[in-house]
């Protein structure tokens, strides 16, 4: 079956512009996670959804970052007024979400470059 998909695969933007990153989880997965992978920082958690609600937004680095999920499926991560330090690979993962410890399946990521 299809895995987690993300679009675009690459995004180059100018400082100050807004960007939207999209994640399509595996069908039937109720839990969805956003992470950021940057050089020297490893993988950092950003936000987690259970269904359409976000019980944990603790990883969002600033109020320029927001995310939503509609219909319990697709999620978008929006970064407003991008800064150069936002350059990273943004990863989405999903899991069944019906009990603890389920494996998280990762998408290929969106590589964001802010010039």
């Amino acid at each position: 079956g299809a895995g987690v998909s993300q679009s675009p695969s690459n995004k180059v933007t100018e400082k100050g512009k807004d960007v939207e990153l999209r994640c399509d989880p595996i069908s039937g997965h109720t839990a969805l996670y956003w992470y950021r992978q940057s050089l020297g920082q490893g993988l950092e958690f950003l936000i987690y959804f259970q269904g359409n609600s976000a019980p944990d937004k603790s990883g969002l680095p600033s109020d320029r970052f927001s995310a939503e999920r509609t219909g319990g499926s697709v999620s978008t991560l929006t970064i407003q007024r991008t800064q150069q330090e936002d350059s990273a690979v943004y990863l989405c993962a999903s899991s069944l979400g019906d009990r603890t410890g389920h494996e998280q399946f990762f998408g290929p990521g969106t590589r964001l470059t802010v010039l």
Partner: protein
Amino acid sequence: AQSVSQHNHHVILSEAASLELGCNYSYGGTVNLFWYVQYPGQHLQLLLKYFSGDPLVKGIKGFEAVFIKSKFSFNLRKPSVQWSDTAEYFCAVNIPSGNTPLVFGKGTRLSVIA
């Protein structure tokens, strides 16, 4: 809050050498433990996981990991590496309470040379 330390940033091995990658976590309670691998140009995929039970966990591609609770460690091992094992390896933990996010180590890059 949990944290994960991976001691080796870059490991270079010859084919057929044995591998052990260190991982230590800091958290006083029960945790789930994972090793993920990222092959060049590919996305993260799960190698193995530990929730409870036998502390020796077998994963895919001949990898295994051993959980030592007293040392807060979950080291990854493989008796004989192959060139195709060249990748970045990430140790991760989460708390088995709801669907908590993963906390990752910074990763260890493994280069296997012929």
